Structures are given as structure tokens and as C-alpha cells.
């Protein structure tokens, strides 16, 4: 159906794709895997002929007997949305905010079938029903902003599948979604492929997702295909070293030489908690409901207790919007709780004096998710990493510099980094810088808010190793916030599961994963893609 042969792509003078060849048949799912910048998306856009300006291509893309590379606009407009359809990564921006969802889906139907608006809307109702958005609850007159991310992605799927296309290209369709939603969307896609006998190209950076879904896999790196074949073959007998490396990285568990620090042991040993938050509540005001009625405040954090002992790594998991980050901000004393108390050592953070806060802050540092926005782009590393030294008075410039060099050494960065700007580092290096900054005041606790979720798998593994190493060497305690269970499991001693502002489960990490008790935890565990599980399932399926 689709056959790409020796496709080369350059944009400007930069070669983007080199000698890409692939084929896909109806009813089959082809996965394209690779780290960022590997050329996955560009391959997909080549098939759609929606490449950015300044692109030049060579080779051939055959689709149902058409050569797409030299197809004119009219033919492509005919094919797009009718025979080839595409779903994009970002459901929040992929729909036009000023048109209703009904209109946006009907538009394609009217265009390709010549249907009038009434008929198109009637068809649209059926399509939305099929993707799990019944008209009774989701009328066609809804605007995209009235839907959640998962619902929008369903609208996108309905739109893409409206003409029963022969080929569907899904470019990271679930990356922006929570794991539970991801599982639902993937299920929906798989069902549609079966139902409509479509070909599906599934593009993802997540090997586990691809492993669960696809028949064949293509592994890309730097614009080239490095490995290609049936999913089982590729993943079982990982002959290609890069594939092996990817597989290893995505299931990476840092080696730990010390036993986990568990709360009940610490309690029994009479250890004092490092930080102890009790009955924390945080309300946010909302818009007035009407002229005379103020909005009911939104409770982001609802009577939460958190206790972390020295050296302990506490995981905090939950879907986006469950209150994890708000909780973290309160623990960092950046946000004041509506009620409740936070004890750090002997200091009550909610009522602390400036002096006490300074002491506390030296001991609680933070690492953020986005390594790109964690640094003031205008300052050099020396100044950036030294920032928390503001908390320590009376340091000379030379002393500060020594401290920065020492901190860089801790995270395995050379002293030559001092004079560079953040944009001169890669994402992984920046995250090391962020950790160096957190370490410079010799804290007892680091709060890490999704520290690896923006990183590619191989780099993620390195950063996880670093965090583990530092924990052991420096006796650090972490509060590790993540939506990714595999990461939490790899690193944490204990886990708190959060849902809608409340802690719904608290336990030893492995217990929770192997035997989740709360619904929230069960759902999370269930939905998390897992490479090993996926392979096992496949093997089992084959044996039958």
C-alpha cells in the first residue's frame, strides 16, 4: 500500500533523512522508534507531503499506485484526509480553537464526500460515538477548549478516521497524555485498525508502547534506519547494538548497594523524620459564579500527610493535575498552605522566621522537569550553579567558585563548564547542572519534580544513575515526583499515590507495583507500558 524507497530529505542545507525505505500493508501496524531528532516525524510528514518550506526530497514514495513525491497539490489534497490521515502529538493545539468540534470533523466529510452540512454532521455524530464521545454528553457544538486532552485526541482520531483512510499515521499520539489515557487511546487505535483494515504507522519514542502495539518496527537514529524487522525478532534477538541500548535504557534500573530506607524501620530505630507535613490543605480561589456568588475554591491539596526520613527516597505519583506540584511547592516553602503544618527538622515552615527559612532552604533544594527553562539563559554556569549560595553569607568569590567546581565534579561535569551559557549544553547535561545547583548547599533533601520526563531514554538512564549514586554517596533524601511508574519503581523506597489532591495509597515501592490496592494505583500500574510485559504477552500469544 505505502512503499517508501530510498527517501532522502534535506531542509536548507541540512540533511534530515538518508535512504529511508519502508513498506506497510493494510491491517498492519508499523512502529517507528527513535530518540528526538532521529527523523521519525519527518518521515511521516514526507508521506503527507506536508514538509516545511525549503525541503527537497529524492527517492520515491508510492501510495496505492501514486507517486507522492511529485504529486501535484490537487492530488495530494484528494488523498490527504481521505486515503492518508494523520494524528498529531499535541491534542491541545491540533484543533482550531474557534470552531466547534462538529464543524471541524464535518469539514473533511463535506470536502471529500461532497456531502451537505446536515449529512456531514449526522455522520460526525456516529464517528464521535465510535471514539467514545457520545453526542448526549459531548454535543457537536462543543469547542475544543471545553474538552480534556484525551477527549481532544479522540476528536482528532474521529477526524482522521472519518473517511476510513487506507493509511493512518499517528505521530506520538499519546506522549502528551497521562498513562491511563494513553492506554485508552492506544486501545482505540488498535480496534480501529482491525475494524477498518487500515495500515497504521505509529511513531513513538517509547519502545514499550511500540512493542505492545506493532507488527513491525523501524528503529531510527540521526535520520537513518538502523534496525528494521518484525517486532518480536527485533526485540528478542536484539542484534543491532543501538536497539539493544534503547531496550536496555528503557528498562534501566540503577544498581543500589544499600537496602531501601523504609519508614517503619526508621520509626522503630527512633529516627526523627527529616520533613513531616501534616494535614496540608491548599485552596485556590476560582472565578465568581455569578455577580452575587463567589466561586467555590478549588482544593488542589486535600489534607495530605507526608513524612520523609533522612536518606529516604519518597516517590510521589499521580495523574497530571492531581496536586503533586502544588504539594512540592509548599514543601519548598514557595507556597503557603491554606492550613496544615510542615516541620523540617525543628523548623515549622509555615510560620518560620526569615532566619529559620534560610536554614531550611539550605537543606531543601529542588530539581525541575524542564532542563531548558531551569536556567536564566543570560547567566553563565558559574553564576547559575552558585545561586543557592546566596543562602550562605560571607563567602568570597574564590570560595564560591571552589564550591561550584566541587558541585560540578559531583555531577561529573568538568570545571571548564564554568564559563559557558546554559544553551551550550545538551538536555542531559543541563539536568546535571540543575542537580549541581541543588547540591551546592549540601542539602539533606532534594525535591525532584519530574526530573527525567523530558529526557530521551538513554539520557534518562544516565541521570537516574547519577541520582542513585549521589544518594548513596551523600546520604540524600529525595522526594521524587513523577507520572512514570517505571522510573519511580527504579528509584524509590516508598511511594505515595495521589489522586484529586488526596493521598490514596502509601507503601513500599515494590509492593505497590506488584500489588496495588487503591483504584488509582491499580489503574496506573495497569496502564503503564512495560516492555517486558509486552514481550511476554506477545510470546504467550504466539505460543497459543
Amino acid at each position: 500500500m505505502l512503499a517508501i524507497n530510498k527517501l532522502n530529505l534535506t531542509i536548507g542545507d541540512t540533511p534530515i533523512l538518508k535512504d529511508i525505505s519502508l513498506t506497510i500493508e493494510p491491517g498492519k501496524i508499523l512502529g517507528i522508534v527513535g530518540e528526538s531528532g532521529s527523523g521519525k516525524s519527518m518521515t511521516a510528514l514526507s508521506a503527507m507531503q506536508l514538509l516545511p518550506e525549503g525541503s527537497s526530497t529524492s527517492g520515491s514514495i508510492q501510495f496505492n499506485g501514486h507517486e507522492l513525491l511529485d504529486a501535484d497539490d490537487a492530488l495530494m489534497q484528494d488523498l490527504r484526509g481521505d486515503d492518508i490521515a494523520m494524528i498529531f502529538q499535541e491534542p491541545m493545539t491540533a484543533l482550531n480553537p474557534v470552531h466547534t468540534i462538529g464543524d471541524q470533523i464535518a469539514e473533511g466529510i463535506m470536502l471529500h464526500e461532497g456531502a451537505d452540512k446536515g449529512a456531514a454532521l449526522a455522520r460526525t455524530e456516529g464517528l464521535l460515538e465510535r471514539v467514545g464521545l457520545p453526542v448526549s454528553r459531548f454535543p457537536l457544538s462543543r469547542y475544543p477548549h471545553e474538552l480534556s486532552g484525551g477527549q481532544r485526541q479522540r476528536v482528532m482520531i474521529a477526524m482522521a478516521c472519518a473517511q476510513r483512510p487506507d493509511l493512518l499515521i499517528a505521530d506520538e499520539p499519546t506522549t502528551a497524555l497521562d498513562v491511563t489515557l494513553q492506554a485508552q487511546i492506544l486501545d482505540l487505535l488498535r480496534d480501529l485498525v482491525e475494524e477498518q483494515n487500515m495500515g497504521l504507522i505509529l511513531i513513538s519514542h517509547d519502545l514499550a508502547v511500540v512493542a505492545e502495539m506493532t507488527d513491525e518496527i523501524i528503529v531510527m537514529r540521526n535520520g537513518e534506519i538502523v534496525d528494521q524487522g518484525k517486532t518480536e525478532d527485533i526485540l528478542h534477538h536484539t542484534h543491532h547494538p543501538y536497539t539493544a541500548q534503547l531496550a536496555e535504557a528503557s528498562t534501566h534500573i540503577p544498581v543500589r548497594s544499600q537496602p531501601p530506607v523504609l519508614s517503619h524501620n526508621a520509626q522503630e530505630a527512633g529516627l526523627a523524620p527529616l520533613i513531616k507535613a501534616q494535614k496540608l490543605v491548599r485552596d485556590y480561589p476560582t472565578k465568581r459564579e455569578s455577580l452575587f456568588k463567589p466561586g467555590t475554591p478549588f482544593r488542589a491539596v486535600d489534607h495530605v500527610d507526608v513524612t520523609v526520613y533522612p536518606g529516604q527516597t519518597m516517590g510521589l505519583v499521580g495523574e497530571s493535575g492531581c496536586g503533586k506540584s502544588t504539594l512540592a511547592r509548599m514543601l519548598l516553602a514557595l507556597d503557603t498552605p491554606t492550613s496544615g503544618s510542615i516541620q523540617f527538622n525543628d523548623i515549622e515552615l509555615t510560620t518560620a522566621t526569615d532566619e529559620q527559612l534560610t536554614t531550611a532552604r539550605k537543606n531543601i533544594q529542588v530539581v525541575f522537569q524542564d532542563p531548558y527553562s531551569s536556567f536564566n539563559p543570560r547567566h553563565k554556569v558559574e553564576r547559575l550553579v552558585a545561586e543557592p549560595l546566596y543562602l550562605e553569607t560571607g563567602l568570597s568569590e574564590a570560595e564560591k567558585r571552589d564550591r561550584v567546581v566541587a558541585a560540578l565534579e559531583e555531577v561529573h561535569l568538568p570545571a571548564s563548564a564554568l564559563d559557558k551559557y546554559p544553551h551550550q549544553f545538551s538536555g542531559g547535561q543541563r539536568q546535571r547542572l540543575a542537580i549541581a545547583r541543588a547540591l551546592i548547599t549540601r542539602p539533606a533533601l532534594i525535591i525532584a519534580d519530574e526530573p527525567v520526563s523530558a529526557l530521551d531514554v538513554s539520557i534518562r538512564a544516565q541521570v537516574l544513575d547519577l541520582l542513585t549514586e549521589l544518594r548513596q554517596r551523600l546520604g540524600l533524601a529525595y522526594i521524587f515526583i513523577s507520572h512514570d511508574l517505571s522510573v519511580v519503581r527504579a528509584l524509590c523506597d516508598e511511594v505515595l499515590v495521589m489522586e484529586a489532591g488526596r493521598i490514596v495509597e502509601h507503601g513500599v515501592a515494590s509492593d505497590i507495583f506488584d500489588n496495588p490496592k487503591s483504584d488509582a494505583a491499580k489503574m496506573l500500574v495497569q496502564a503503564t507500558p512495560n516492555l517486558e510485559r509486552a514481550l511476554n504477552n506477545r510470546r504467550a500469544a504466539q505460543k497459543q
Partner: protein
Amino acid sequence: MILFLVRKTLWAAVTLAVASVLVFAALEIVPGDPAQVMLGINATDEAIAALREDLGLNKPVLERYFSWVFGMLQGDFGKSYTYSVPVNELVADRVTISLPLALLSLLISTAIAIPVGLYAAARRGSLADTGIMALSQVGIAIPNFWFALLLVYFLAIWLQLVPAGGFPGWEAGFFTALKSLLLPAISLALPQAAILSRVTRSALLETLGEDYVRTARAKGLSRRSTIWKHALRNAMIPVLTILGLQFAYLLAGTIIIENVFYLPGLGRLVFQAISLRDLIVVESVVMMLVGTIIVINLLVDLAYLWVDPRLRHRRS
């Protein structure tokens, strides 16, 4: 939605109130005495005093402020010191020139700028685009009164195509009157059009880079219908903002242009009133302009609602 309107209206009222204090206070400290100006050089002191009493200029400041404000609330803007007629009447005459002038120039500027901006954006990087953008840069740099001068001399005096200035009145016939507004409107409009076309172009380019435009293309829409159906409405939001600002600017911009073209509009009225120290006229006209601008801002806010459904029911 209603809440939004109520809130906006309340704020508009507060803004007006603050503006009225500012205007009144500013003109309190203007040097010069309207009574003196009215009676001229040789007037006796008693005559001036009598006139001041007559005009109510001898009352305490607060009393005058409040009687002014309450008058305005009832639609009574007072009586011109120099012309001895109600300000309403004076303004009513002038508005029939200034408002059509501002609207006409807005119309011209929009009619030129939006298609040009669209064209340039659709052909980004082409020779036409580069040319248009270069031209618009020059357009922005041209002061409208200088442009007006050039127009008068080339079109009205050399070629005698249009009247050089003056206004025959609407009673001279709609098109005759319109014709005499044409040159002033063009000189006001073109520099504005230059700005607006740039805004339109960049707004459209911005939206053309959005994901939903790619979605529309993936649906099979042509480039053209993508622009019309998907990009344009989203691009209207910044364009609307600028349009609102421009209308306010055009209303005030008439002050100089009316002088160049000798149009008896609001701007000239204010100008004359300032030099004659006819403060009540100055105060009232400025307040009307401020009021108009506030109303326009409200309308622009409403237009946002119409264009952007996200604003219609914003939750926290």
C-alpha cells in the same frame, strides 16, 4: 458572559470617573481667563467680574466639578463660554464631520491593509511580500500631516482633483461632502494601513504556524481554504486589538488633519476652545472622546468574545 460585561462596564465607569477628575483638574490650572478672552483687551474689570459670575466661574471648585459631572450624566455638557450655545449643539455639528472622517479612514485603512497583509502572508518571502513590507515600513514612518501636505499640493493644487480643504456640509449632497473628506481620510488612513497590514501579516503567519493549520491541511484542505477557514479568524484577534487602538488614534488624529484641511471637526473645536480658554468645551469634548474610546474598547472586548469562543466562558 454577563458577569464579564458587568465587570467591564463597571471598570469603564470607574475609568471615566478618574478621567473626569484628571481632565477637570488639568484645566483648572490652565493659565488664562475665559471671561477676559471673551470681552477682549479693553474690557473693564467689573465687566469681567460680572461675566465670571454669569458663567459660574466664581463658584468653588468642587461645586463646579460636581455640577459639571451631574450635568454630563444627564446629557447636559454645559454651555460654551465663547459661543454661548450648549456644548451639545456645538459637538453635534462637529461629530458629523469627525466621526465620518474617522470611520472613513478606518474603512480605507482596513480595506487596504487586510487584503494586503493577507496577500503578503500567503506569499511570504516572495518579491511581492518583500516589496509590500518595505513599502509599509516607509508608510509607518510618514507623519500623517506631512503626507496630508503632499497630497494637498499634488492632488488638490496641481491636479485639482479634489477640494484642497474645507467642508461644504452634508446638506451640499452626500457625495460632495464625502469627496471633501476623502483626502483627509486618506492621509489619516495610509500610515495606519501600513501598521495594520504588518500586524495582519504577522498575525496570519503566526497562526499559519499553528498545529491546527497542519491538521486542516492533513484533512485535505487546500492552502487557500486553510487560510480562509482556519487561520484568518484566529489571526483576527491581534488585528482587532490594533483596530480598536487605531480608531481611538484616528479620532484624536483628526486634530491635526482637520487643521491641515480646514475641516470644522471636533479636533479643531478643541484646538480653538483651548486657545480661547473655552474650558467647558475642552473638558466636555475630551470627556466625550475618552468615553468613545472606552466604549470602543468595550466593543473590541465584545468582538473578542465573538471571535474567540475560549473567552466566552472562561473558568478559572
